[in-house]
């Protein structure tokens, strides 16, 4: 055996400089703990709870997947799920709506800043107030809607009392602030549109709709993406408006999953915590599709760094 002294291989692993290795964790700790404690763990607790039957008072009783099986035959759940689909689809109208208003307001005339802010106004107001305002608007006896329908010889209709219309009625109320939100996103997006590209396109002979479609919209993609995300979240979280405007009625026709789960879990006749949790889990799984999509596109953006 040759026992020649090998040159001692230099320490190839860089020593992590201590300050820089520990510092991030110290900075993260409070926020992370809070967040884990109040947000991440509860998600898993909900998953767990959905396997139990529990009235919030006694001891939970393990029932396996029974809650989920019950959901399968629960008509109210079906209605809620279906309404959620309506919300998801129709709420997206806020995006073209917002774009339209943004295009309308993207000028530099006197006082336009004030106009922009006022158009944005509905977003700042609590949904509770929006809900109230719109219930009065729809009110079958004195609501402005019927007054206006009267002018054109239509009506009267009871939007919030008609099981076929009620969800649409609430969605319209929700679209109001949401459109304002999308509008502001697009306004700032339009601000960031590269003016030289617009000029290049103008030299290329693009105008009006063709300019919008081929040059502007592609550049507004980030704004559209965010508008899409916030609108989807808004649609799936919709609770306040339903609670204020109809309380889920008439006879449950305006419920959505988030409202139904609240009703099942915490309302006057509810307190089926496990069942409520199961509904929440379903809602979460739907949302997960969008969360995954969002994270994925963020991951793609982050990677080049």
């Amino acid at each position, binding site marked *: 055996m040759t026992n020649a002294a090998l040159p001692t291989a230099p320490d190839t692993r860089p020593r992590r400089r201590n300050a820089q290795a520990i510092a991030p964790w110290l900075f993260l700790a409070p926020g992370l703990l809070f967040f884990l404690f109040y947000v991440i763990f509860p998600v898993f607790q909900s998953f767990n709870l959905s396997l139990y039957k529990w009235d919030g008072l006694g001891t939970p009783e393990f029932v396996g997947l029974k809650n989920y099986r019950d959901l399968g035959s629960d008509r109210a759940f079906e209605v809620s799920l279906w309404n959620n689909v309506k919300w998801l689809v129709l709420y997206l109208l806020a995006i073209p709506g917002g774009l339209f208003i943004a295009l309308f307001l993207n000028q530099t005339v006197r006082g336009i800043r004030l106009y922009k802010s006022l158009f944005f106004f509905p977003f700042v107001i609590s949904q509770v107030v929006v809900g109230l305002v719109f219930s009065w608007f729809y009110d079958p006896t004195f609501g402005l809607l019927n007054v206006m329908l009267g002018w054109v010889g239509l009506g009267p209709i009871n939007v919030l009392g008609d099981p076929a219309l009620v969800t649409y009625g609430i969605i319209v109320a929700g679209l109001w602030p949401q459109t304002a939100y999308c509008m502001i996103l697009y306004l700032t997006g339009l601000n960031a549109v590269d003016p030289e590209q617009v*000029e290049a396109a*103008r*030299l290329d002979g693009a105008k009006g709709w063709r300019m919008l479609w081929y040059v502007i919209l592609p550049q507004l993609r980030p704004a559209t993406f965010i508008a899409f995300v916030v609108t989807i979240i808004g649609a799936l979280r919709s609770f306040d408006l339903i609670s204020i405007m109809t309380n889920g009625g008439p006879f449950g026709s305006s419920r959505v999953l988030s409202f139904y789960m609240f009703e099942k879990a915490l309302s006057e006749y509810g307190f089926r915590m496990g069942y409520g949790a199961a509904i929440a889990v379903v809602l979460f799984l739907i949302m997960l599709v969008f969360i995954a999509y969002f994270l994925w596109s963020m991951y793609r953006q982050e990677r080049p760094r």
Partner: protein
Amino acid sequence: MSQVTLNGAIKRYGEVQVIHGLDLAIDDGEFCVFVGPSGCGKSTLLRMVAGLEDTSSGTIQIGDRDVTRLDPAERGVAMVFQTYALYPHMTVEENMGFGLKMNRHPKAEIRAKVAEASRILKLDPYLKRKPAALSGGQRQRVSIGRAIVRGPEVFLFDEPLSNLDAELRVEMRVEIARLHKEIGATMIYVTHDQVEAMTLADKIVVLRAGHIEQVGAPMDLYRNPDNRFVAGFIGSPAMNFLPGTVTPQGVTVAGLDLTVPAPASARPGMAVDVGLRPEHLTVTQGGPLTVDLSESLGGVSYAHLVTPTGEKMVVEERGETRSRSGDRLGVSIAPEHVFFFDSETGARLR
């Protein structure tokens, strides 16, 4: 026929006038470069020709048409932007074909024209890529390609190379010169780069604060500047200016022990600025000047000198002998290379 003619062109932004009634004729097929300090109105003027800025007053003609009130798209011009302004969501091919597509040309024609342009610019391997996947020089080529495809009568360039690094800039400069030779269209080119202006231009327009200072071929401006501004602007390193006095014997340059024949229009006692280009000065060992710093670039070096009166000047040195910091030198110059300017107005005295 695509000469460009400006008649009394004026541009106002609100109250502020930034272009003051310019008259300018650019011949068909000419390569015209606008130079001038930052903010002098080069871009504004170019954009007025493009139709991207309204002309407040005066007219602009392209060929025989008065285009003053026409849409940019109708003027038969194409523009290459400093930031390229490529559409990031389209491939190179789509970028180049976009203008034709917007004007509803048939697909086959678009394909043919894009192929032709990409051949000229050697862009074939990149046709399917998005701009983000191209280097700066390639992007600039695409943006030129986009202009070519539309077959415009007039090409407009606004500092097209200033975002490229030094090496690429040289390469693209040569390419643009070649392109001009090949397609022979009228080109108007804005730059603040000496070298680009000197090498590319058939005609240089020197602007200052919205006025034209001088128009002419590059070497004409170099040899025969009309005023101190143009003299200092054209040529690199810049011309040295030293205060001089007109005496009956000629013009004496303070601190330089130098007397040169006075120009015809100079009156004795008059204060003049004497202009001496660094490349026209010859160094002699021993003299009143001190070398502050000597910078050697290889083939050439520049000595920064200080006169006894504290004026600074730069002298070019070539060959093997280079002065060093601290050396004491004299300079000499051929009389025909000395320029004189009125100290007050800056006008050239001949």
